[in-house]
Every structure is written in C-alpha cells, then in structure tokens.
C-alpha cells in the first residue's frame, strides 16, 4: 500500500501550522514571558536631540532612588572597553554615548532596578547637559563642503562619506549610451521605513559567576551569530555562552543585528550577578533599531528605437545614519543592489554607489529583503516604466522584448550574477490575462466619464534569495551555510533541529514536511526545534529568504543520509544485499517482490535493537549545506488603481500576483507569505515612511505617525502560481518570503504614475499620500525626494 504524501503532510500539503496551536491561544513563549528568580529590569535613557556634545551626565539622583541597583554611563562602559562595538559592516557603533550623541533616540545611560517602573522613574532623574550641534538629516547636507563631521571619533575619517563603490563595465556602458537612439532618465528616492515587528527587541542576560556561564535569552533571527559576536565582544569563552531565541514575535530583518541594549544587559548581569531583563518599548524600537531603505537613485537607460535596452547606469546615494551598520553578509558596499535588471537581457551596466553618515538612526537592515534587493527591484521597475513611456511603447511589450528567455538560462547578468531558471513571459501572460490587460484602455475611458482616473502598473522581477554561497557571502568571516540535525527515535518518531530560526514563518510546520517527503515519516511525528545554541547545530539564521534555500536543503540532505543508513538496516532485516533494495515513500522492499518490505519505522526500531554486525547503533545525523548559488524566484505583480482627482486619494481596484518560487512545500504558507509581503508593499507605497525634520527629530517614532495598514485599507490580492524548480536545490525550492515586499511597491507606483501620465507626470515618490498625488495631478510635476518636513499636526 503506497503512502499518500499529502496525507502524511509531505511536500505540497497545505498543512495547518503546528505553531499556531500556541500562538493563537496566547501561549507563545516570548522573551518577555520569561521570568527568572531575582531578575532585575533595565531601562535605557535615550537622547532627545539628534546631534550634541555631552558636556556632563549627573546620575546621582537616579542612584539615590530606592530599588536602583546600577546606573551605567558611556564612561563606565568605556572603562571596560565596551563603549563601542563592531557593526556587521565593519564600522563601529556606540553602545552608550561617551563623547557625542549622533541621533535622536541614541542610548545614553541605562538604569537597572528591581522593577521596570523604578528603572523608568530613575531614567527621568538623570540630568544630561547637551551642547547642541547642527544636525545633518540627509546626504545632501552630509556631502556639503562645510558640513560638520558626525564621526569625529574615527581616525582617518574625512567628512561624512562612508564609501564610494562601483561595479560593472563603465567603458562598455559609456559606449552603449553613445550608440543609443534614446536615453531615458529618472531620479527616485526609496524612503526610509522600519520593519516594526509586533514584538520589540529584548533580552535577558543571566550570568552565573559560579559556573562562568552566560545564558542569553534574546529575540534573534540568528542566535548562533549572537553567540559568536558575544564571544568576540564580551571576551567570554564560547562554550560558556548559551543563546536561546524563544518564540519570535516577528523579525523582518529587525532582529538580525546586535543592539546596544544586549551588550549593556550582559555587562549589567555580570556586574550585578543577577539576571537582567531589557525589553524595548515601541518607540525605542522605531527610533533606534535597524531601519530599511533610504536610498536615492539617478537611473539612466540607453535604448534602441525598437525597445531593446542597450545599457543601464545606476548612481545611488544611501543614507546610513550615524553608524554604518547595514546587516548584510556580502562584500558589496551597497548589498545586492546590483542584482537589478537580472530578469532582463542587457548587454552592459554600470553602478556607482556612495554612502553617507547622517544624524539618523543607524543600521540599514534588510527589511524583508535580501540586502538592498528591494531598492534594486523598485528602481529597476520604475526605470523600466519610464523607459517604456519615453519610447512610447506598451509597458508589457517593453518587458517582453527585454526579458531573459527561458532557454537562455543559466544567464550571466550584466552585473555578474548567474540566474539559473525561470519562465518570465509565462508569468507575465498569466498576470495580463488575469487583470484583463487588453481591455484596460476601454475601462480607463469609461472611468474618465465618471470623473475618475484609472492607472495600471506592472512590476516583474527575479531576485537573488538565500545567501549565500560560501565563496561570496559571510558574516564576520563565518560562511553563509546552514545546518540540520535529525534524530530518529526507535518508535520512528523524530526530532529535527536546524541552525535557522523561525519568526512566525512556519518552520515547525514546513521543516517536518521536508522530512516527511524524504523519509515517509508523517509530519505529525516530527518535532522541530530551533533557537537554542546548546542544542541546535550551528547555522546562520533566518533572513534574506534563506531558510528554505539553505536550511531547507540541509534538512533534505540529512534525511537522505538517514535514508542511506536505513537502507543498510533494511537489507539486513530483509536478508538481501543492499543493491536489491528499492525505496518508495516510507518503505524499503525487495526488488521484484514488492510485498516483502520494511517501513522506515521498522528500520528505526532495528537501529536501536537489531542492527547489523559492525554497524554503529542509532539513526541520527547532521548535514551542513553550502548552496552552490542563490535561488532566483520570479514574480509578476500588476495593480489597477483608481484616483479621485479632487482629493488625490487612490484605491486599488484589482491586484494580481503571479509568483514562481519553484516547488512549494506548503502552498498555504507560501500564499500567506505573499499576502503579508504585498501588504507591506502596499504600506510603503501608500502611507509609510520614517523621516526627520530639520532639527533631526524623528517623525515616525510612534504608530500614529509611522503607519501600518490595517485590514480596512489593505486591498485584496489575487494569487497565481508558476513552478520552475530550482535546478540546484535538492527539492527544487526557491526563496519566497520577501518576493512580494520586494516586487510589490513598484506595481503600485507604476499604476498611480500611469494614471497621471496624460498630465506629464513621470514620478511620485513613496509614500504616495493623497496630497502628493493631488499635487502631481494639479501641477503636472514630479514629486521627488524627501525634503525635511515639519512635524506636528
């Protein structure tokens, strides 16, 4: 009797998420749920100003408060060589400010007290005397010849520039532009935004002087990297550090970096010899932890009259805040920005990138994004639409002409990436059909009679997901592999541990499905555990949609190792030679005699009770997987919008998403990921940004100014799928978690701009709030960039 793979929860089963049993009942176990005996509480005093020299700090009144155990200042951190810490981009970041504060919300002091109320009260008693310095809130100010230097702490730092970096073939690209019939140009800003997970950052540091062991509970997407970093920064022996990342209330990239609060809490626990809990408040999370984007682009495209792209130039200027703390594992200064145009067959391209310090929060994290891929694909698709319009060519046809064709794979992109698979035209065709593209102009004319403006926008892209391969990607020198350890118990049930860390992304469900697919053990019989560095194998964590491409592959590989051993046991049990054994899902049998067989569960029992002579007992193994390449999912998103020309308010009439993420392990979870990603894309396109006023005050430090869309505004999304298996992944899967966030925004912007095309409008920068749309509509001018604006209502 053959096993039904879907019934046992294998590949392709839309199995309900096992973790939801506890999540939806409020029984999750998050960092703040953990209470340790004698635990103290930490609160951070943050800078109220963006740029100032610290003249003095008086903590005496805080020390005097009953219940206060410790008050830490930058000076005290410096005495222990902990005032500064390394960033993931080979810069330094202040833990507690010593000389200057460099952004509003920067950590200045920390109070450790018996309860969080006392800690907060005591922060209010600390007096800091600031000498205000002029703030720099954008790269234009940062680059000015007379600009004040933000990083005067760094020897050899000149001005506020962090880097100049380039890639591509400049000479060949210059020639392409000389030969062009037409050059299309556009300037764009991808505004600063924030991942804003529901659970803020937080940790409990528990140092035991008697054993010398530090147990560090932290909401981290990459607990093993935290252990490595703590070993480096705190100079504790690695075997004495145990990092536990319990249930995570959302990450989106925000929970990859090491934050000041973690370092302070660890030191505080060492000094007080008590567990110290630090839970950030919502404002603290928004104003100080890793943001996303904040990049300006000058884009140029060399075009031939027939629509062929001859060459591309991209010139980016990025705003990194006070410390260069981009959380990314590549050697490329602006991440994978040069993955732009990977879906298009372009002869040559050149990119020049410049980064600046500003008096804003540091840490350009990959917010649901593979390291600037979101900006890359947004810029690409906005440039594509502008080029099609400049040529007077249909936007779908322009893409079709320039797409990499299916049979061209593997294809080396103009910037040097290798894409390996995809059916771009097929996805586009499905999308166009679903949105009834050929009827659109008739719809537009009909709407015009009602006084409404209709627009349609397309975004098509393939993006590199699943860092990395060890040749090109590492963090602090550690290569970007991942791992899985599988133990089959004698009853045939199993425990699986990986180096990745789910954050509401369904690992406990899908990982078991991969094992079910490989071994035929029902998914319900497999416990998945992650996040404890004392028990899980070393891995690089979960971000950049890398879990399935890397850890998921490791799971398939470890299951295959188990199956290889089980085959030997099966031969022993069936008393035939191994060569005569055949495998079907969940069962070995004798070739030519299908009825004579043993199940994987039989083999598991035998591994502990009846193993062949000379064989090691047990049925468990570990696999480390170093992917040969990134995975390249493709997406086609099409938005149809209607604008109220009297107010500038726009509504989404229809949104079509065609995703090709290779083989889908759990289609329901994949669809959930796409819906969530599109919601975030809609947020950025419509309402969400984090900006600063002229004084460097953050606008967007609370959820009344930094807007997350609710179910009321979010449009419905129609999902379609195409499956092109990844040629190098053991189960043909590609990353998907970020596709919609990456590709979605351009579809919305292209649609709104398309609706205003007749007015001569070529661009409205995000967020396309009604006032911006109205201004573009009434003036016919582009809305560009993000000038500092005044706060207040």
């Amino acid at each position, binding site marked *: 009797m053959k096993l039904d793979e879907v019934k046992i929860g294998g590949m392709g089963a839309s199995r309900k998420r096992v973790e939801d049993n506890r999540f939806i009942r409020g029984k999750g176990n998050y960092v703040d749920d953990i209470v340790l005996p004698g635990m103290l509480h930490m609160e951070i005093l943050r800078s109220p100003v963006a740029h100032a020299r610290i003249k003095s700090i008086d903590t005496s009144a805080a020390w005097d408060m009953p219940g206060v155990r410790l008050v830490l200042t930058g000076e005290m951190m410096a005495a222990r060589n902990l005032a500064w810490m390394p960033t993931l981009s080979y810069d330094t970041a202040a833990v507690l400010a010593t000389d200057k504060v460099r952004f509003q919300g920067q950590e200045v002091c920390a109070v450790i007290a018996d309860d*969080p*109320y006392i800690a*907060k*009260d005591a922060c*209010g008693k600390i007096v800091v005397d600031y000498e205000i310095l002029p703030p720099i809130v954008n790269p234009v100010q940062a680059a000015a010849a007379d600009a004040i230097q933000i990083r005067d702490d760094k020897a050899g730092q000149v001005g506020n520039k962090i880097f100049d970096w380039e890639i591509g073939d400049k000479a060949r690209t210059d020639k392409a532009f000389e030969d062009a019939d037409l050059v299309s140009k556009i300037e764009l800003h991808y505004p600063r935004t924030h991942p804003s997970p529901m659970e803020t950052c937080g940790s409990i540091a528990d140092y035991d002087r008697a054993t010398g062991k530090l147990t560090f509970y932290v909401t981290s997407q990459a607990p093993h990297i935290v252990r490595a970093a703590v070993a480096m920064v705190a100079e504790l022996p690695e075997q004495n550090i145990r990092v536990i990342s319990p249930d995570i209330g959302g990450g989106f990239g925000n929970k990859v970096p090491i934050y000041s609060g973690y370092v302070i809490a660890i030191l505080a626990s060492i000094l007080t010899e008590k567990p110290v809990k630090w839970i950030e*408040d919502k*404002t603290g999370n928004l104003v100080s932890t890793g943001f996303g984007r904040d990049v300006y682009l000058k884009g140029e495209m060399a075009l031939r009259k027939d629509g062929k792209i001859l060459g591309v130039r991209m010139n980016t200027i990025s705003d990194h805040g006070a410390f260069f703390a981009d959380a990314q594992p590549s050697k490329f200064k602006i991440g994978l920005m040069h993955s732009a145009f990977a879906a298009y067959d372009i002869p040559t391209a050149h990119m020049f990138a410049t980064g600046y310090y500003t008096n804003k929060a540091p840490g350009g994290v990959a917010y649901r994004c593979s390291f600037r891929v979101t900006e890359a694909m947004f810029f690409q698709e906005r440039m594509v639409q502008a080029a099609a319009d400049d040529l007077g060519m249909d936007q779908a046809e322009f893409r079709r002409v320039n797409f990499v064709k299916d049979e061209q794979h593997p294809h080396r992109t103009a910037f040097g990436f290798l894409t390996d698979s995809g059916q771009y035209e097929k996805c586009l065709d499905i999308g166009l059909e679903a949105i009834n593209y050929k009827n659109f102009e008739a719809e537009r004319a009909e709407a015009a009679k*009602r*006084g409404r403006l209709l627009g349609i926008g397309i975004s098509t892209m393939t993006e590199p997901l699943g860092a990395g391969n060890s040749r090109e990607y590492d963090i602090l020198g550690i290569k970007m592999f991942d791992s899985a350890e599988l133990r089959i118990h004698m009853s045939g049930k199993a425990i699986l541990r990986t180096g990745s860390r789910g954050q509401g992304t369904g690992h406990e469900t899908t990982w078991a499905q991969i094992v079910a697919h490989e071994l035929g053990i029902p998914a319900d019989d497999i416990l998945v555990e992650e996040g404890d560095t004392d028990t899980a194998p070393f891995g690089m964590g979960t971000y950049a949609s890398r879990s399935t491409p890397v850890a998921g592959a490791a799971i398939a590989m470890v299951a295959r190792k188990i199956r290889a051993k089980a085959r030997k046991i099966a031969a022993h049990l069936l008393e035939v030679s191994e060569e005569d054994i055949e495998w079907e899902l969940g069962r070995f049998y004798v070739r030519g005699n299908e009825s004579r067989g043993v199940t994987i569960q039989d083999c598991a029992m035998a591994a502990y009770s009846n193993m062949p002579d000379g064989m090691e007992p047990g049925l468990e193994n570990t696999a480390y997987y170093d992917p040969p390449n990134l995975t390249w999912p493709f997406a086609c998103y099409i938005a149809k919008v209607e604008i109220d020309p*009297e*107010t*500038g*308010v726009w509504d989404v009439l229809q949104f079509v998403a065609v995703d090709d993420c290779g083989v889908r392990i759990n289609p329901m979870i994949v669809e959930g990921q796409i819906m969530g990603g599109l919601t975030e894309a809609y947020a950025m396109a*419509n*309402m969400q940004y984090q*900006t600063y006023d002229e004084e460097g005050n953050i*606008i967007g430090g*609370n959820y*009344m*100014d930094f*807007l*997350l*869309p*609710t179910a*009321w*505004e979010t449009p419905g999304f129609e999902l379609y799928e195409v499956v092109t298996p990844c040629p190098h992944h053991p189960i043909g899967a590609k990353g998907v978690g970020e596709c919609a966030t990456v590709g979605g925004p351009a579809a919305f912007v292209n649609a709104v701009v398309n609706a205003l095309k007749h007015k001569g409008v070529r661009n409205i920068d995000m967020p396309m*709030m*009604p*006032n911006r749309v*109205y*201004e573009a509509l009434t003036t016919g001018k582009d809305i560009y960039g993000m000038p500092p*604006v*005044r*706060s*207040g*209502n």
Partner: protein
Amino acid sequence: MYPSRFAYESPKTLKDAIGLLDAAGGDAKILAGGQSLVPMLKLRFAFPDQLVDINNIPDLDYITFDADGTLRIGALVRHEHLEKSAEIAKRQPTIAAAAPLVADPIVRTRGTFVGSVCHADPQGDWAATMIALGGYIVAQGPKGKRKIDMKDFVLGPYANALAFNEIAVEAVIPAPKGVARGGYLKLERRVGDFATASVAVALDMQGETVVGAGFALAGVGGKTIDANDAASALIGKKLTEETIAECAALVAAKAEPRTDHRGSSEYKRHIVATFVKRILTANSTQKAA
C-alpha cells in the same frame, strides 16, 4: 506600559466621584473610555496623582431623544453605541456619519463620546461635531449642574472649560426646527490616523430651505475650529450650486492648516472646501455627482 505612579479609585456614585476630584485639588484625571488618556499615561505625557474611574457609576450610558427632539448622550456612551444606534441613524445624520470614522473599531468599543469632547484634541471628531450641532455640555460639580455651550467649552488644544472638580455628565444636542440633515467627512491616511482634515456639517431643513446650519473643522488648526459663521451663506436659502460654493469658500477660509507631513496648508484648505461641497451636494435635492 510603565506609567508614572498613580492612585486609582472607582466610585459608585457621581457624588463620590466629584468628592474625589475635589479632594485631589486638580491632580486627578477622570477615566472613562481611556482611549486618549491611557496612551498619554503610557508615554508619560500625562502623570496624574489619581485616576477616578467612572465606569462603575450607573445611569451614565444612555442615548435619548426628548419628546421635542433634543438629543441627550450620557457620559459613558461608547462611540460604537452611536455607530450602531438605529435612532441616531434615523434622526441625527451628522453623528451617524462621524461615528464610523472615529479612530478604529477597537477604540470605538471603549472610547466615549463625552470623553472625546472633553479631551478637546484638535483632531477630535466629536468636539467638531458638537460645535457644528450647536450643542452644550452638562457639567456637574460640588455645587450642582451647569450648562456649558460648545462655543465656550473648548478653550484650546486639550483644554476645556470644566473646573477641576466637575464631571461632564451629558452632551446635549438641541432639537432641529425642521429636519436634521448633514454629514461628516474625514481624510486620513489609514483607519485610526490623525485626520489630515475633517469637516462636520449640520443642517436644519424645512423642505428645501435651510433654516439652520453649523460647521466645524478638525485637523486643520491648533484647535477645533468653529466655522458656524458660514451658515450665513445658506440660512433661508436652498442648497444650490451657487450657495454651496459660497458656503464652502467661507468654511475653507476659517481653516488654519499648517504645512506638515500630511500635506501643504493649501491642500488641506482645498480638502475642506471639497468636503463641504460634497456633504452639501449630497444633502441637496439636486444630487449632483
């Protein structure tokens, strides 16, 4: 949430509640729905010594129309009750239009109408609605009750005319001479967002003739804006394209918007005029687009 320390009392009678306020000498705050107060406590923008929770006082949760049509809203009426009231839907269109636009559905289940009026947030929907409707607040203190007209009630941003030992026990909207018409429109970037601009319009119509009109604005100035003067464009007249345009211009002139991240002052003023036109047009017999 880690607010400053405060004492908490939950009296069972209005008399006890007023006594507690009186004893606190100005350092107490009333907790009704808490949808503005609690966030302010959390952020430590508000740090009262004492909270006087009035939720356990009986007989403050009512929506009644007197025989003459006067509408009375008790201190513990939640936004949601107004949103779902069939009587309000039938008889008081300005409130009926505003109720579903107040904050978000979660806030509406807790927050109170009277509390929102008292909070006097320049962005608040109900203070504007009350001004347009020409309503008054009934305040009760140690010496008994008094009426405070809405035009005297909101003193400025987050400031009202209540004495420290008074509780606003009831909001009253006078009966129309004819039929109550009107509407409420708000431009916001997202449900629950502070308004970019909000417009409250109250009309009192006898047949096609306007016999009374009130206008107020939220979100377009440092305080709730009284634009009732614009009624002069409509009183004794019909709602025509000309009277509507004149009225919209008068209301928009009253706005005091400032340019910020929600839009330029010109844009906000334009939205005010557009919304006045839309509400009046919807109420005209012409039913133009």
